[in-house]
């Protein structure tokens, strides 16, 4: 691309772009694939971990090697179920228990939190009535409720689900309430002018315009649900990844502790990914509007 003068001769032009190929090694296969690029750093970290274990940089008694973790994990997943080895063969069962608790607790928090958030954000009267109570309850770390909840429900499934639902409710409700309060006034006026009665504004205008914040709130709530399921399983209920985590600690099985932590990480990541995909589908209208 060169510019020409009116007589047709080329205008000399300083070449300010540097030649990337000369500066950086060519890794076309890597640059071309975004998925592969995302795997580079995790792979390097894993390699570093294995290296430090096999080179003896860290004593194997405190940090097991990835290979040792994989071995213990494999037994936890596929080992025979015997009364002697408490963990052998229980991974799937424990994982399903944790997933079910998170799913149930989060679903309750999502439904109640979205509804309350919209009502609190949109109706000034409801906000004035409940604001102090919500702020007070929000100021209490959810885990502080643990003894009370166990006392109330006993060592029972309900205790874990209640803790998750209660804890995830507040960030969801407050995030949504703050956004609903910011509903653009012109959009509300436009809807009224086009014939929407004021009692239908919540559904017609406030909810759709708040939808991006709804998903932001749900994402925070989902993250918190995973925190709370682990706490509940460590302290209050039988079974689950948090329960396995704590049991492994009590018998000094660091490999199983790490296996449980990685399991939680994987499922946390997957559930978040699922939620983001879901948000992407319902926020089609927003594409290109943010974060392009």
């Amino acid at each position: 691309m060169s510019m020409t003068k009116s007589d047709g001769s080329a205008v000399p032009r300083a070449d300010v772009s540097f030649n990337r190929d000369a500066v950086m090694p060519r890794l076309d296969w890597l640059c071309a694939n975004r998925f592969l690029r995302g795997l580079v750093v995790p792979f390097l970290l894993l390699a570093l971990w294995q290296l430090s274990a096999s080179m003896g940089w860290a004593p194997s008694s405190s940090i097991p090697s990835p290979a040792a973790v994989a071995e213990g994990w494999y037994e936890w997943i596929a080992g025979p179920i015997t009364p002697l080895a408490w963990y052998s063969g229980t991974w799937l069962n424990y994982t399903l228990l944790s997933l079910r608790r998170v799913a149930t607790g989060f679903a309750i928090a999502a439904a109640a939190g979205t509804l309350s958030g919209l009502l609190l954000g949109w109706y000034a009267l409801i906000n004035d009535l409940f604001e102090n109570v919500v702020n007070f309850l929000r100021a209490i770390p959810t885990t502080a409720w643990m003894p009370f909840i166990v006392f109330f429900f006993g060592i029972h499934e309900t205790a874990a689900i209640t803790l998750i639902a209660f804890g995830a409710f507040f960030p969801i409700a407050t995030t949504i309430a703050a956004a609903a309060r910011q509903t653009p006034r012109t959009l509300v006026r436009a809807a009224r002018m086009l014939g929407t009665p004021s009692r239908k504004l919540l559904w017609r205008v406030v909810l759709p315009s708040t939808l991006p914040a709804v998903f932001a709130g749900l994402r925070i709530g989902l993250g918190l649900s995973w925190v709370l399921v682990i706490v509940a399983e460590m302290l209050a209920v039988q079974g689950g990844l948090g329960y396995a985590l704590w049991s492994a600690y009590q018998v000094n099985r660091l490999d199983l502790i790490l296996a449980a932590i990685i399991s939680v990480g994987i499922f946390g990541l997957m559930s978040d990914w699922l939620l983001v995909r879901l948000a992407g589908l319902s926020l089609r209208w927003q594409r290109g509007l943010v974060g392009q």
Partner: protein
Amino acid sequence: MNEFPPIECKSLSKVYRGIRGEQVVAFHDISLQIQRGEFVTLIGPSGCGKTSLLYMLAGFETKTSGDMLVDGKGIKGPGSDRAVVFQEYALFPWLNLRRNIEYGPRERRVPQAEMQVSVDGMLRTVGLEAAAMRYPHELSAGMRQRAALARVLVNEPKILLMDEPFAALDAQTRLSLQRELSRLSEAMNLTVLFITHSVEEAVLLGDRVLVMTARPGRIFADVPVSFARPRDPTDHEFNDCRRAIEDLLKQATNPSVGEYAC
């Protein structure tokens, strides 16, 4: 048929509370009538209460004193008989263009088939058939304002209230939208109140130009613009009128009623 003017204000005043609780008079003792099919442009310094007046007619704000009648009846809130076009378009970003235009008919429970026909017709009228499935943020400013116009006109309103609708558009787009609006308002026999900052726009579009004073706002001058359409901003006649209104706008800070006719 009733013969009430579509818009009538009698000694209308608006006072609202400022941020420190003080009373602010937006405008005071405004009386005006707008006849059926009339296109009235309203011009005045910033903060003279133009927008307040328009929002009160739309039913978004309440009056402080005086009377404000639409077709001889008091205003009880917003309604689709009084269409509003905002400067910032106010399209619903979560609905595609077609859905935005369908919003009014859906709220009025117009049967599906009938709605289909009128929305298609409206899309054609404003030249947006090809963009019907796009979302507002994918459109240019001019297309958005066209869509906003289509969204209200599909409800077949009698009154069109416009709050500086073309202020944010580039000159070319503004010109084409002004022409379209002129054509449509005449074809649909709309009664229009149009707020603008541009004297040229006021003269180009208006059957009458109202000039308001600075706060507290009053109607300073009511100038009939009688020469034929389509108007050419480069005409002598046009420029004389424009100069006269610019003078009036300058005087509008002095409290004496001006009179002038183009």
